[in-house]
Each structure stands twice: as structure tokens, then as C-alpha cells.
């Protein structure tokens, strides 16, 4: 009796509601499965919820979110040259993971520590990809955990094949200088590394040399430069740029009271490997990242609590605007038409690089991005 009643109600329901049993199925494509559109800029950041957010620069909206496999740590982020793979520094800076941007799948990992050898190793944003995307380079800092003491070992430069899958082993490793905090790949395959000096690395020959003295630079009447290099951006301007603050003394007495304090930049052109070390402005405000315009390397933009546009040759401020809060990381669209500010809370601010007018703010899902890297990349 009950079965007949249920069948009757169901049939009546279909008839009177006008519903068809052949209704199209709802679109079941999951957000993480969305493919990137070709020849379009995307913005990538990693949040404290261990999620990688991809923002579409055209709609200026969140396009997709990938749940990451490793554990969150303030994320260094490097995109493969074709924009299809994101490499993220995770596990308390103990590993680099690779993720397919079209499927969110974890396709690669390189872990620096070894439980068997009782070695704990970390990397401070020191990783990058070669120009065809087939090799990943890292510098890690290992410590041997003895039962009663820690033994600081030599830092290691390692080369991994990016198609080696998860838990990849390096194909080559050699000793690296201490205190490396970022790597960048030049057009000819040279790796530049920033630490106490600017280093030039031939990865396959295992050869490292100082490309420019920094801690012991020989600039007359200058103090040692103070630098903070944690954001591996600059690819869209084809540069590896690290800003410095230094005291410029009046004479050899090095009196700090009469010194001028200046901002300057160590800029390596990744096309030519030419290195420039030059001041670009008086020290007036604090900045954490800077980048030159992709179409005019004389224009430098720096950010923290304000956004400032500098004329490097004239060593002067062109324009400065206050920001609604701190932003640690600056980056440009690939064509230089938009300036993005990120690495703070869960926001990305968009500015016009010509006028420094604010164009928009993109609010991401909950989860701060800390001081992680914000990359702008083009999907090819």
C-alpha cells in the first residue's frame, strides 16, 4: 500500500510540476579543475589556509583555488615559464612542492631534510626554475641533529628534474655560500643568488663566484648596505632587483650624524647579466619590495605603507601615495599596464603605474597571505 502511495505521489508530482526526468545535469566541473585560459595574466598567492589562489587579471576576480598538499609556511612561490606549474615553498621552508595549475594536482616535491641521516634543512625562499621549466634549483641550509648538539653544515645548491615526481632526489648538489635568500634565472641559464653578496652560479659546472661584493663593497664613504631579499619577483621586468639602504658619509671620518641616507638598488638585467649598483632616492620611507617598470627600467616602484614611483637617473620621487595598509610584495602585469600590491591580509590592490591611482581591490577568501610571494604570470 505504501509503495503504491509513494509511486502515485511521485507521478503526480512530475505531472503537476511540469518537471522532466530528462533535465540537464548541473555543471559539475569543480573549481580546482578549471583550466587556465591561454595568453592571459593570472595572479597567484598562497594563504595561511594552505590554499593557492589564482586570480584572473581580466575579470579581477578569484578564478580558482587549489588545496595544497604540504604544510603551510610563509610561501615562496615561483611559476614555471609556461605558467602551468606553481612551485611553492612549504613545510616550514623544508620542501618545495609543484602543482599543476589546471588540475591542482601535486606533481612534484623536493624535501630537504632526512630523518634517517638526522638532518634538518630549510631554504629561505632560495629556489627557482630554469628557462625551459625542466630543472628546479634550490639552496638549503642543513643542520645535523646530534643527541647533544646541533652541527651547522654547509649550505647546499641542488638541481632537481621537475618531472621526477613527488619526493624527488637531486641529480646534482654542491656546496653553496651561506645566507642565500633568493635565486633568479637569467636568459643564458646563469643563476644569480643574493646573500651577503650577489653570486653567479653555473649550475651544471658547479661553479659559484661573487658577481658583486655587497657586504664588503668598496664604495668610498658608504656604509655596508642593509638589504632584505625575500620576495622572488621581478621576472616580468626581466630583472633580479634587491633594494638597499646605506649611509653616504661626507668624508672618511664616517660621521653618521652628517651622513645622507639613501635608497639604492642592486639590479641584474636577466637578459644581459649586466649588474648595476646605484642609489635611486633619499631615504624617506621604508619599503620592502621594489620593481622597475617592465617597459622602462628607469622607473622604479617601491611599496610598504606607501607606494612610491622613483626616477632612478634623477634620483628623485615622481609620486607617492599612501596605502590603506601595509603591502609587502609588489608586482607588475606582464605588459606593464597594471601594478599589483599584495602579501598582506587577504587582499590584492591594483594601481595604475602611470598615475598611481587605485583601480580596484580584490578580496580573496579568508586566510592571510602573510608575507608570501605574489606572482603575476601569463598562461601559455
Amino acid at each position, binding site marked *: 500500500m505504501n509503495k503504491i502511495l509513494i509511486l502515485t505521489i511521485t507521478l503526480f508530482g512530475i505531472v503537476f510540476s511540469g518537471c522532466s526526468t530528462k533535465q540537464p545535469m548541473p555543471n559539475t566541473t569543480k573549481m580546482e579543475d578549471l583550466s587556465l585560459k591561454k595568453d592571459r595574466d593570472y595572479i597567484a598567492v598562497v594563504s*595561511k589556509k594552505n590554499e593557492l589562489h589564482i586570480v584572473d587579471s581580466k575579470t579581477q576576480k578569484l578564478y580558482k583555488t587549489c588545496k595544497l598538499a604540504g604544510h603551510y609556511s610563509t610561501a615562496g612561490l615561483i611559476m614555471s615559464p609556461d605558467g602551468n606549474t606553481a612551485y611553492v615553498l612549504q613545510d616550514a621552508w623544508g620542501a618545495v612542492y609543484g602543482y599543476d595549475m589546471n588540475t591542482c594536482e601535486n606533481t612534484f616535491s623536493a624535501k630537504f631534510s632526512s630523518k634517517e641521516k638526522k638532518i634538518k634543512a630549510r631554504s*629561505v625562499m632560495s629556489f627557482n626554475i630554469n628557462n625551459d621549466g625542466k630543472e628546479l634549483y634550490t639552496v638549503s*641550509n642543513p643542520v645535523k641533529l646530534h643527541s647533544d648538539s*646541533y652541527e651547522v653544515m654547509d649550505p647546499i645548491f641542488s638541481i632537481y628534474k621537475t618531472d621526477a615526481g613527488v619526493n624527488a632526489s637531486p641529480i646534482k648538489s654542491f656546496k653553496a655560500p651561506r645566507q642565500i635568500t633568493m635565486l633568479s634565472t637569467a636568459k643564458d641559464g646563469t643563476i644569480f643568488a643574493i646573500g651577503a653578496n650577489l653570486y653567479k652560479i653555473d649550475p651544471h659546472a658547479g661553479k659559484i663566484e661573487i658577481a658583486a661584493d655587497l657586504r664588503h663593497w668598496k664604495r668610498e664613504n658608504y656604509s655596508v648596505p642593509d638589504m632584505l*631579499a625575500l620576495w622572488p619577483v621581478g621576472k616580468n621586468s626581466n630583472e633580479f632587483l634587491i633594494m638597499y639602504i646605506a649611509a653616504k658619509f661626507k668624508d672618511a671620518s664616517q660621521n653618521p650624524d652628517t651622513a645622507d641616507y639613501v635608497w639604492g638598488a642592486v639590479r641584474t638585467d636577466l637578459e644581459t647579466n649586466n649588474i648595476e649598483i646605484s642609489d635611486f632616492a633619499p631615504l624617506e620611507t621604508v619599503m620592502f619590495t621594489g620593481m622597475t617598470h617592465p617597459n622602462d627600467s628607469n622607473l622604479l616602484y617601491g611599496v610598504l605603507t606607501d607606494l612610491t614611483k622613483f626616477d632612478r637617473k634623477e634620483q628623485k620621487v615622481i609620486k607617492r601615495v599612501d596605502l590603506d595598509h601595509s603591502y609587502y610584495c609588489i608586482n607588475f602585469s606582464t605588459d606593464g599596464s597594471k601594478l599589483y600590491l599584495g602579501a598582506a591580509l587577504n587582499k590584492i590592490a591594483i594601481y595604475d603605474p602611470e598615475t598611481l591611482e587605485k583601480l580596484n581591490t580584490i578580496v580573496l577568501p*579568508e586566510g592571510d597571505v602573510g*608575507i608570501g610571494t605574489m606572482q603575476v604570470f601569463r598562461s601559455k
Partner: protein
Amino acid sequence: MGLFKPLNPKADLLNKSIKEGTQKEVMAMQSIVGCTSTFDPGWEVDAFGGVAGLCQPMEADLYGCSDPCWWPTQIPDIMSNSKWSQNSPSAMKDWKQLTSTYPIEE
């Protein structure tokens, strides 16, 4: 170094090492790139051997400064205490949930 006066025993050791010509041994210990991140604590200096790169109290950005550790005041760093802020992804909303850290029980 003549412009600086050591304020703690480790700084005093550094001062003595300069006089004794053993400064390089001390510098070797300064292989920080993040203090607890490489388990080489003690020399609270930044990557360039100074303090200007350290987060200062006026830059009290909880997550910006706790995460990579260059932090000279009493705040946990998630390199050593990875779970400290894992349930508090939003500093503005969740800061009240942040508490002390305790020894990890294996």
C-alpha cells in the same frame, strides 16, 4: 666595533673575538638565514649581520614577522611551532585565539 658597547654576554664574546683574532669563528656561527629556522639561535642578527632586517616592535605584524622568524621579541615562530596559528588564518579576526606555545610532545 668600537662604536658599539656589548650589552649581553654573547655580544661581549664577539667583542673579545675581534681582539683575539678569532672573529671568523664567531661569524661562522652567524649562519642564520633565520635563527630558529636553521636551529642556530643566539645571534639575533639579520641576513646581513645587522639588526635592521629584524622585525621591530613597531612592525608588529603578527604573521608577517612570526612566520619567517626574524623576530627578536617574544612571539612564537611557525618554523618551530607550526601549529601555533594553524586555526587562526585571519589576523584581524582570529588574533584572540593566538596563545602561548608549549614544548612539543612527541
